[in-house]
């Protein structure tokens, strides 16, 4: 089962824009309820195994702009977005975290999310975990993962294996799992129920009149124009593209003003033995300082090792030939800063900006220092923090020197978790959509992706996105799409 190429004129009862964690689950619920569903996806369908994970080739084929996207600021924050059938689920780490119960209660309270039962959401999470096969690795952990475990254990810090949505058909090798992304799970299920998926179709804007959208104006992969008519539309393009599309359609309100991310800073660590796993990431995370600060491991192919040394190349470059003994790790923070997504007339892509607060900068500093300490406890020979002017670190005394030298403005700050650009709830001063994702002031336009999460959850957000998307789609089915 696969997708079809988009055509110039299409029609559906329900149009779903985007096929990632939000779009695929929405399509499944609506199609299984008997609705006529058309999904459109800007990227193409790429079979798993066709590209090497975390490679430049994968970035070319499955990421927006080849993976080179940035939120402007001081410092700018590099981010990535999936742009393929399955969206970000095809390219992310595959680590699964349920939304924390206390966070759900806070969202409900502060954003006045109506008819919201955190227990119901966690029950949906149960279903999701079965559908995408969330589980621990069957055998020994990879060396980079074991480094996180041993360093945290030595320091007495809270840590653990994060389950992944994977199957392991080739035995118990932790690095040979097959991700149960949307192209393996919800998209085939939606299509089996009658949903259509058209790839190579960018939606430029929606035709909206008096709060009702009737058609989507599109550009096909060959550059030719197209148009899709519908009764209801679900915008599921992710936290950058969804608000940008709404703005291009003349919908403003509280749209795109509260981008939330988990900024991360990185380091590379060199060990005595070969530890590098080029095409996978560690499954351990360290949560001693959560939710404000978390540590984990990144993809570490030789190109990414070189990138991690780039900021201080003059003194760090000697390490690049040791890449087989190196791995890259990150410290991620729950940021108090906020960003904006702003569409500019006549420009295809939005401008994205993000501003870190003073507290964020200090948290990045302490996070990098603590992560460095963890690496030393895990018997790293030398640690190479990723910021301009960084000294290499070989012992605890060096950690203090490094911490003093750190400036967030000199660091390579990145993120892969983007959310909260159309926050859901009934507080119209701060929420872009209602308690079930319908855009405030619009009759038949819904958002159902990471944009809806009221704040950054402090953990990998995919589980939260999927659970909310299913909840909201079920509500839509139950009410027949009428205003309630």
């Amino acid at each position, binding site marked *: 089962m696969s997708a079809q190429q988009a055509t110039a004129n299409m029609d559906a009862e329900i149009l779903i824009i985007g096929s990632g964690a939000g779009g695929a689950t929405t399509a499944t619920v609506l199609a299984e309820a008997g609705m006529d569903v058309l999904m459109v996806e800007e990227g193409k369908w790429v079979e798993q195994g066709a590209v090497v994970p975390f*490679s*430049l080739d994968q970035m070319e084929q499955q990421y*927006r*702009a*080849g993976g*080179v*996207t*940035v939120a*402007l600021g*001081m410092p*700018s924050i590099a981010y990535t977005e999936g742009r393929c059938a399955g969206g970000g689920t095809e390219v992310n780490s595959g680590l699964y975290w349920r939304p924390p119960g206390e966070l759900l209660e806070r969202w409900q309270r502060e954003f006045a999310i109506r008819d919201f039962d955190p227990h119901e959401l966690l029950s949906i999470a149960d279903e999701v975990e079965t559908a995408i096969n969330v589980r621990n690795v069957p055998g020994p952990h990879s060396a980079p993962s074991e480094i996180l475990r041993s360093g945290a254990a030595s320091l007495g810090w809270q840590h653990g294996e994060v389950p992944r949505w994977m199957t392991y058909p080739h035995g118990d090798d932790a690095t040979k799992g097959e991700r149960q992304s949307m192209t393996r799970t919800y998209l085939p299920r939606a299509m089996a129920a009658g949903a259509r998926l058209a790839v190579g179709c960018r939606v430029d804007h929606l035709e909206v009149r008096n709060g009702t959208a009737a058609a989507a104006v599109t550009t096909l992969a060959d550059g030719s124009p197209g148009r899709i008519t519908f009764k209801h539309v679900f915008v599921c393009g992710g936290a950058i593209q969804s608000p940008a599309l709404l703005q291009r359609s003349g919908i403003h309100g509280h749209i795109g003003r509260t981008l939330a991310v988990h900024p991360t800073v990185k380091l590379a660590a060199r060990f005595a033995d070969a530890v590098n796993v080029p095409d996978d990431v560690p499954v351990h995370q360290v949560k001693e300082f959560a939710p404000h600060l978390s540590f984990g491991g990144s993809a570490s*192919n*030789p*190109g*990414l*090792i*070189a*990138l991690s040394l*780039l900021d201080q*190349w003059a003194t760090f*470059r*000697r390490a*690049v*030939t040791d*890449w087989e003994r190196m791995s890259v790790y990150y410290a991620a923070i729950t940021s108090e800063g906020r960003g904006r997504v702003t569409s*500019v007339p006549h*420009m*295809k*892509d*939005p*401008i994205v900006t993000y501003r870190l607060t003073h507290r964020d900068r200090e948290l990045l500093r302490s996070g990098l220092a603590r992560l460095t300490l963890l690496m030393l406890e895990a018997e790293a020979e030398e640690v190479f923090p990723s910021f301009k002017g960084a000294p290499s670190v070989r012992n605890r005394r060096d950690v203090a020197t490094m911490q003093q030298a750190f400036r967030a403005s000199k660091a390579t700050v990145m993120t892969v978790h983007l959310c909260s650009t159309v926050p859901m709830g009934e507080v119209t001063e701060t929420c872009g959509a209602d308690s079930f994702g319908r855009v405030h002031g619009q009759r038949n336009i819904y958002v159902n992706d990471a944009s809806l999460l009221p704040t950054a959850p402090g953990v990998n957000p995919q589980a939260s996105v999927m659970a909310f998307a299913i909840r909201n789609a079920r509500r839509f089915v139950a009410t027949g799409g009428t205003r309630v």
Partner: protein
Amino acid sequence: MSQVPAFPLVGPFAERLLIDDLPRLLPERRREVATFVAHRVDTLPSFTRFGVLAIGSVFRLLLSVPGGWGVAKIIMRLPLPFVAEYPRLMRSLSFAYVWEHWPTTTPDGSETGGVAA
């Protein structure tokens, strides 16, 4: 809408950076890397691409005048917002490409004799 190709503006600068950073990288590899960098610039989001090409034009102009590379190197050392990110972008793309495709490359750009990926 057709767009100005990036290579004439950013390719020579990317190559010049590689001569400084990885002086023993083979010329044909240097050219291949610069072509890759320009291709990635061509696929940048529109606003970012506009900014990169605007800054790239200034550096390209500097490359074309005597002593311009020295001036460019001084500018690159200044903590200028966004301007400093241009050479960083060029280097990021270049280094990622070099070590992903030829992981046995040494810090001066030569090969240690291993097999390229």
